């Protein structure tokens, strides 16, 4: 296919769902059926465009491998977006497609389409029986009144994720990244009016805020990382920045230490988005959204975005972890710790979705740990396989919840929690499709040997960490063992979940009357479960006994490797890093460890929970052996409580009491009021001075004049004859005086 057409297709991949969002919101908000049809069309267009691009790249891989290695970016196109300086300096945003994009383009539209199909069934549950649907709450008796809105948001979500995947620069990636943040906020809080009787339960609206703000903590650091990146590289475009020369220049410009700082700033975004410790707390609570949302957050989009960012930035990350060991320690350590911690928490949870949520955190930890030791392909591989089996598990859990709610409708019991696994049991017979798909995906999650995809990808991570450990990195050993324990726990809690939900006897009436979900929900389950198994076969190591020789080459490894292979080799030649990526030799120890922990975990899970069905109201068998540790794990290591005490409450108090009431109202306004009052006081005294001295003095003078005038006024009688008399007398007197002066009589006196 011609390159121009491929470019157009790449641009168009995210366009469909984004457009659908606007069309539904602006025009068809009232038409529920039309909305989901449009959403389907939107995501289908992405699917078609995305797969066309992806398979073209795969075609290139098979036809002309050397060329693809030399020119990994098949499509690259950009437009000038932000004017700054002369036109050549304007900030450009654009799309590109390489092997990494290709595998994401295969995964994201497919999984998302499955979820879209499923959503129709999920939200139309019990159609036709509805009376008075309430907005903003889950409705058990009719189509959700905000059905169209849901599909609009989902479309935006999918569009944003696809935008992120095809983005060729950090800015466009960040746009998709943040749009997903918004969508997760809107969708987790989709049932915004929902409340719980239990004051400790988090209602969706609070979960939404928590998700948005927690990820935003990572995002603001990431924003700093982006501007740092921009300042150093002079561009945000990956294809320009991640050439060997450009990377070498950057290293020479600011040194490897600052490069590591840059990577860690960007990694903070990943920590938030991919729910790594210490920002993992939002993800379990994101379960409050409708189940398809959980699936899309946990599998296809959102959390994958964080790992994808690290993969996308891998040339830079490689420089950082290769030259600054601390960077690798931080990234790998956070990943391994998260993988371990989340797995321990998952063991004790009873909410069917919450177990899966912690399992997601744990699995993401594997990917991050892999990146921390430089296992680029292993991380990518696990990202893809995880997306498939985890979306199957989530959709399956939604199906279980619907089944339980159906039972609740049937027996009119709305107080029993339909999501609590202790209320389930024996659903295997009632929901066969859900059971089998859940079982397959659960085994994939546990890493059930050979068959499932999860085994291959997890094995590769373990092998890589083991290999790195063999290179003399102590930390890699610690990471390896943390991951191995995590893998054991994963198998254990997965089997625990399967046992509690599907095996044994029904512990409540709800479970007894549960029913298989409708076909909208079942079909995607089956499709996704299929890939949860088969996908792993694309990444079997070449030298793996029996299977390796059959497949001849490790397709996934070779294919995804093309993205960074040439760059890393050049970097190694330039002496910036010590070596490129190559397939590591198969080592039996991690393989055996992986198989052992998976099987033993599964067996132990069945032994404790499945062998003998739990009774209604029975305490979890682990409570007694684990003792206080169980409480600790059950409360999720108390992270939430810690954050509440250390960060959230102080922030609230600080905002209100210190910044607003003390500083603004108290100090600043206090000073202003003091000045104001002093001026008023001064004005008051000036007024008094005026009143007493000036006004008083003038008044006194006036009074004096007035009283004098009072005396004199009486002479004015108004009688003309008297006036004349006086005038005549004065005239006489004057005449006499004049005469006297003239006559000289007075001369003697005057002189």
């Amino acid at each position, binding site marked *: 296919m011609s390159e121009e057409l491929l470019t157009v297709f790449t641009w168009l991949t995210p366009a469909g769902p984004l457009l659908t969002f606007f069309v539904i*919101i602006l025009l068809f908000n009232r038409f529920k059926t039309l909305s989901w049809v449009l959403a389907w069309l939107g995501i289908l267009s992405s699917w078609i465009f995305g797969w066309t691009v992806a398979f073209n790249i795969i075609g290139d891989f098979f036809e002309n491998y050397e060329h693809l290695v030399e020119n990994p970016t098949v499509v690259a196109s950009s437009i*000038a*977006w*932000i*004017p*700054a*300086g*002369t036109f050549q*300096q304007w900030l450009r945003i654009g799309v590109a497609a390489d092997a990494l994009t290709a595998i994401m383009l295969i995964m994201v539209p497919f999984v998302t389409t499955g979820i879209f199909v499923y959503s129709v069934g999920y939200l139309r549950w019990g159609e036709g029986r509805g009376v008075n649907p*309430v*907005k*903003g709450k889950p409705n058990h008796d009719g189509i959700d009144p905000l059905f169209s809105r849901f599909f609009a948001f989902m479309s935006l979500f999918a569009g944003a994720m696809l935008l992120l995947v095809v983005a060729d620069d950090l*800015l466009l990636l*960040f*746009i998709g*990244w*943040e*749009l997903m943040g*918004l969508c997760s*906020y*809107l969708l987790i*809080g989709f049932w*915004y*009016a929902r*409340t719980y009787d239990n004051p400790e339960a988090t*209602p969706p*609206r*609070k979960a*939404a*805020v928590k998700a*948005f*703000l927690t990820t*935003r*903590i990572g995002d*603001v*650091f990431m*924003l*700093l990382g*982006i*501007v*740092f990146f*921009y*300042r150093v590289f002079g561009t945000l475009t990956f294809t320009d920045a991640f050439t060997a020369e450009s990377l070498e220049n950057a290293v020479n410009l600011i040194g490897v230490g600052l490069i590591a700082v840059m990577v860690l700033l960007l990694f903070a975004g990943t920590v938030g988005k991919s729910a790594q410790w210490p920002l993992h707390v939002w993800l379990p609570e994101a379960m409050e959204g409708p189940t398809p949302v959980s699936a899309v957050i946990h599998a296809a989009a959102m959390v994958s975005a964080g790992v994808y960012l690290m993969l996308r930035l891998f040339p830079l990350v490689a420089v950082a972890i290769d030259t600054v060991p601390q960077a690798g320690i931080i990234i790998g350590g956070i990943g391994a710790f998260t993988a371990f911690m989340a797995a321990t928490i998952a063991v004790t949870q009873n909410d069917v979705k919450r177990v899966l949520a912690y399992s997601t955190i744990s699995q993401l930890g594997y990917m991050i740990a892999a990146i921390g030791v430089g296992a680029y392909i292993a991380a990518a591989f696990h990202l893809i396989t995880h997306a498939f089996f985890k979306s199957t598990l989530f959709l399956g859990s939604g199906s279980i919840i619907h089944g339980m709610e159906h039972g609740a409708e049937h027996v009119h019991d709305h107080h029993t929690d339909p999501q609590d696994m202790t209320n389930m049991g024996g659903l295997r017979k009632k929901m066969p499709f859900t059971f089998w798909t859940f079982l397959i995906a659960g085994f994939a999650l546990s890493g059930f040997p050979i068959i499932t995809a999860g085994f291959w990808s997890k094995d590769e991570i373990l092998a890589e960490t083991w290999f790195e450990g063999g290179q003399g990195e102590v930390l890699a050993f610690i990471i390896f063992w943390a991951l191995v324990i995590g893998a054991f726990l994963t198998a254990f809690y997965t089997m625990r979940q399967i046992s509690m939900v599907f095996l044994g006897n029904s512990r409540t009436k709800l479970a007894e009357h549960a029913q298989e979900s409708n076909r909208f929900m079942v079909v995607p389950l089956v499709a996704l479960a299929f890939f949860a198994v088969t996908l792993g076969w694309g990444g079997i190591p070449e030298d793996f006994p029996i299977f390796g020789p059959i497949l001849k080459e490790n397709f996934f490894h070779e294919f995804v490797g093309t993205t960074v292979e040439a760059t890393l080799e050049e970097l190694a030649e330039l002496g910036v890093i010590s070596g490129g990526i190559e397939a590591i030799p198969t080592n039996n120890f991690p393989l055996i460890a992986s198989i052992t922990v998976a099987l033993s975990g599964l067996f132990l899970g069945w032994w404790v929970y499945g062998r003998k069905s739990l009774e209604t109201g029975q305490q979890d068998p682990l409570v007694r052996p684990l003792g206080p540790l169980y409480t600790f794990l059950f409360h999720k290591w108390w992270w939430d409580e810690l954050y509440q005490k250390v960060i959230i409450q102080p*922030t*609230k108090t*600080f*905002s*209100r*009491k*210190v*910044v*607003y*009431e003390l*500083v*603004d109202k108290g100090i*600043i*306004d206090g000073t*202003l009021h003091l000045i*104001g009052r002093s001026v008023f006081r001064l004005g008051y005294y000036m007024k008094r001075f005026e009143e007493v001295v000036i006004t008083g003095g003038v008044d006194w003078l006036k009074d004096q004049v007035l009283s004098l005038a009072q005396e004199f006024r009486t002479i004015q009688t108004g009688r003309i004859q008297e006036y004349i008399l006086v005038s005549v007398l004065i005239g006489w007197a004057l005449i006499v005086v004049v005469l006297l002066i003239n006559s000289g009589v007075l001369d003697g006196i005057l002189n």
Partner: protein
Amino acid sequence: MEFLQENILLLIVFTPLAAGLFILLLPDDEKTLIRWLALILSFIPLAFTLYAWFNYNRWEAGLQFQIFAEWFPSIGSNFHLAADGISLPMLLLTTILTPLAILTSFNIDERIRVYMFLFLLLETAMLGLFVSMDLVIFFIFWELGLVPMYFLIRHWGGKDRRYASFKFIIYTMAGSLGLLLAIQVIGLSMGTFDIITLMDRWVNFQSDTLPNTGLPVDVVKNVAFWAFVIAFAIKIPIWPFHTWLPDAHTEAPTAGSMILAGVLLKLGAYGFIRLVIPLFPEQAHVAAGVLAIAGMLSIILGGYAAFGQWDFKRLVAYSSISHMGFVVLGIAVMAWVYGAEATNGKMVSDAIYATNGAVLQMFNHGLSAAAMFFLVGVVYERTHTRQLKEYGGIWTVVPFFGAALVFTSMASLGLPGLNGFVSEFMVVRGAWNPFTIQLALSMLGLLMTGAYILKGIGFTLHGPLNPKWKNLKDMTMREHLVIWPLMILMLSIGVWPRWILAIINDTVTRIFT
């Protein structure tokens, strides 16, 4: 057409005044007529501005549409107006927001004639300021803007309006006192008030003492610089000069808040870009770090204070302080590079980003703050309360209002794809190198932005519906007409910032090269 081309700025600036005077002649009881006439007449300056916008020559990005007339020859002041790529977006913002504010004010019933007159007078003052190229003219428009706003708050405001309006006018007047003195000293000693002439004559003045006054140049320059800075800092407002703003906003009528946040705050920032930095490059360079810290404090403490509010309007008011902090940060970078003795390509690029970002942030904040205040006004008008805790779950009954609030809040929060992000990104990009620490700490404010925005949305829209608001009506046609243009503009800048940034960028690039 030639007439239009030559006198376009006069037409833009004085049509509102003429319209206002005309409305003043109408009988007071013709309320409907007055409202509609004010609305229709307020579109005329918009039309003229659009004409100027499209006839602005981007290739010669300097001052255009010059108007020059002798005005006060005995002191050397001339009536000099001109526009460049920094003025034009501000003109556009003002002329867009004024019709919308007037449309918002249709529900005002009391003394509508005077109200509309004051609004249009205010528009003239703001527009005039953005194109003044003479310090005296600048100052006249500056002061002229205060009076109508004072009366708008004083007569049509909320229950604490006396206090708020008094604080507003006294505070701003106190600031402009120093400005006036500084302007006089400059004008007296240089013999001219023309900004363009002064940019050369005043900046490059080589002597120890000033002519006519005999004052020492260094001292005068420093004192005048700080006088300018404080006057504009109060207006922006920069922390800690900000406390007049929440009071004024909270008490002002909705349309008043829209204009106050939308345009009046920009006068201060515009003053920085147009006067302070070009006239005092050396002093500004020295003070850039302080400015950056002030911007940082505005961002952080504004964000925290907003988060601490339970009064929705006050929350939005504090958010303005936080957002204007980014403008200040951008200005700080501009000051740092403009006054630097030696620059290199990367520094210039930093400055271009930051200055573009600051100007765009002014425009963006104008849009989103106006929209936020409008929406708060909408809900206040229906519920007669601004207390967040008294709302709850109203999204169910007012779906469009909810959607508009979420949209606007997200624009305000700086969500990529909407306008706020572009400008914030540019400022952050520009500020990274000179002011890394201030910038890094400012991110705390960016985080708080998320917190208070979600607090606002959460308490109004989310949660179970408060039965008191069961019968709340969604937005009317008139209100739709106000919010849609704002939303479209916000989206358009977010998706395709080039249409406005290109014009800003041309001028800014010329400043630095």
